[in-house]
């Protein structure tokens, strides 16, 4: 039998020990909360994690820098593009390369879309667990529209690995403006409804107001970052504190709560969604100026195939800029110009021997991206807080060590303190408002 847990060792006589186990709807699937109860009051609790420990860091030590991009999607799987962005920035800091203008704008657009869908999912789960099932359905509907924009450009709804080292995989889809406008309109409508449903809702207020209160010093001591820290009143946002990518170009506020309880965490996330929508609105018009020609001139692909059946075609084929690595002209705007660390454009790879060798060496084991020896720490504002990558490289094409600073670990570690002495029903909103994502906590 396993060694008894701390909660079993010093459990008081006659108190009920119960599991709020890994497969509980409120614990998002893989956290085991062991409770010592006197009736409904929680005397003591202990949290056991590790049910979703998928050996991310060990796997990264055996993958090349390019291949482990897919694992970064699955860390905070509610906002995957922000993880990609974090990893790409860390690598660019290590390699010392810069990213062209348009790639930075695309990264900001997709990261903010991903952040809004992260907050929508978190608040949906929290509201549903407090009984407001309508909010869950509304948020999921709005999220579908945002995922349409992401899917249109990156090809996948969630696990995109679209933001690469040195830029982005391909240009935006020509129809991204209408899709983004639809997404924004839908999300704004849902936000207005949810404000109406929850803000002054007596049940929701009594479940969340002054429940799970955290003071500022305590939050800093616990290492809290992100919306949870901002709900206690400290305006620390990595996008403002250490501006990365193109974030210093857009003006947006950092919403702050005052009491640090569940309701403030809910309100900070709602305000933050509006700020992210504001950023998206500021980004979209910038795309025209940076690359006026959306689709390259030339023959439609289908027409080109049909025409080439009868006789050889000389005209260039008009490819959608959203196609991966198409022409050198599109490539130069979305990927950095440093040839050593960037995949050559398909046009070069298929027409010149140098391009072919560059393409081959880029993906050949032992030859791909080989950063200089050294270590780097770079952080990004994830959905739940500061998402930091600490990469130690030893010059080969595989990271010697890759550690992720997950913002959810401090949040869950402090849960024991937040719920001691409260009722069992208070665990659910506290756990929900902190948005514990096991992918980045257990790694």
């Amino acid at each position, binding site marked *: 039998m396993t060694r008894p847990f701390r909660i079993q060792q010093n459990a008081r006589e006659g108190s009920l020990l119960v599991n709020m186990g890994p497969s509980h709807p409120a614990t998002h699937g893989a956290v085991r909360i062991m409770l010592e109860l006197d009736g409904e009051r929680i005397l003591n609790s202990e949290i056991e994690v*590790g049910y979703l420990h998928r050996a991310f860091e060990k796997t990264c030590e055996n993958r090349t820098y390019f291949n482990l991009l897919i694992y970064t999607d699955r860390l905070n799987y509610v906002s995957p593009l922000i993880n990609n962005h974090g990893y790409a920035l860390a690598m660019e800091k290590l390699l010392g390369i810069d990213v062209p203008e348009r790639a930075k704008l695309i990264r900001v657009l997709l990261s903010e879309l991903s952040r809004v869908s992260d907050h929508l999912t978190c608040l949906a789960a929290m509201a549903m667990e407090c009984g407001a099932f309508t909010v869950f359905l509304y948020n999921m509907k709005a999220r579908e529209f945002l995922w349409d924009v992401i899917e249109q450009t990156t090809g996948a709804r969630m696990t995109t690995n679209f933001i690469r080292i040195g830029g982005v995989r391909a240009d935006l889809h020509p129809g991204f403006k209408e899709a983004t406008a639809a997404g924004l309109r839908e999300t704004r409508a849902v936000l207005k409804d949810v404000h109406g449903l929850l803000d002054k809702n007596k049940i929701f207020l009594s479940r969340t107001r002054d429940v799970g209160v955290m003071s500022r010093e305590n939050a800093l001591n*616990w290492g809290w970052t992100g919306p949870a820290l901002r709900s206690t009143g400290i305006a620390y946002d990595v996008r403002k504190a250490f501006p990365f990518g193109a974030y210093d170009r857009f003006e947006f506020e950092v919403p702050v709560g005052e009491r640090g309880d569940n309701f403030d965490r809910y309100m900070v996330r709602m305000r933050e969604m509006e700020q992210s929508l504001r950023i998206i609105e500021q980004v979209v018009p910038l795309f025209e100026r940076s690359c006026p020609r959306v689709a390259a001139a030339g023959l439609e692909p289908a027409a080109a195939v049909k025409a080439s059946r009868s006789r050889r075609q000389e005209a260039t084929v008009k490819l959608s800029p959203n196609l991966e690595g198409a022409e050198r002209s599109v490539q130069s705007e979305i990927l950095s110009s440093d040839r050593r660390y960037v995949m050559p454009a398909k046009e070069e790879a298929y027409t010149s021997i140098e391009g072919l060798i560059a393409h081959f060496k880029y993906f050949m084991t032992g030859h791909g991206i080989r950063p200089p020896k050294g270590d780097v720490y770079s952080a990004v504002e994830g959905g739940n807080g500061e998402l930091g990558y600490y990469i130690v490289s030893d010059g080969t094409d595989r990271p010697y060590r890759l*550690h992720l600073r997950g913002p959810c670990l401090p949040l869950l*570690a402090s849960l024991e303190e937040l719920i001691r002495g409260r009722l069992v029903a208070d665990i659910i909103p506290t756990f929900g408002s902190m948005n514990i994502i096991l992918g980045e906590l257990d790694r």
Partner: protein
Amino acid sequence: MEEKSDVLSDLAARVPGAVLETSAPLGDLTIVIRPESLFEVAAALKDGPGGFATLLDLTCVDFPDRPDRFEMVYHFFALSGLRRLRVKLRLPASEPAVASLTPLWKIADWMEREAYDLFGVTFIGHPYLRRLFMNEEFVGHPLRKDYPWRKRQPVIPLRTP
């Protein structure tokens, strides 16, 4: 960077002889300290003018070929000055042990349990040093370089489909 020097000078004043090297690779201020002086350095950083109120991250890197095998890496963050500091210390391979920071920061509890679980570094003074991620009966520490990548230790006998 002028404020870099005042953090180090204050540190040298409070804990003489602790800091072995200082460097700033890629702009991140890094200091390497002697393992025994970790607690004093951490306390000095927390209460000192630098105001490093948050222990951002604590992790371990395994260098099997070096005499001092385990390198513990601490990241501190000062909210007031918006500064980050990386503190490194090296532990011998035989029995890697270092002072626990739980009296100073509550989050150190879980981060140290994770380092103990995945690397086998013991923390003196830790209230409840137990595996955080792997299950109790797991043998070995998976993130060490000598642990094979796919060596599975199933908790229950698995059935062949």
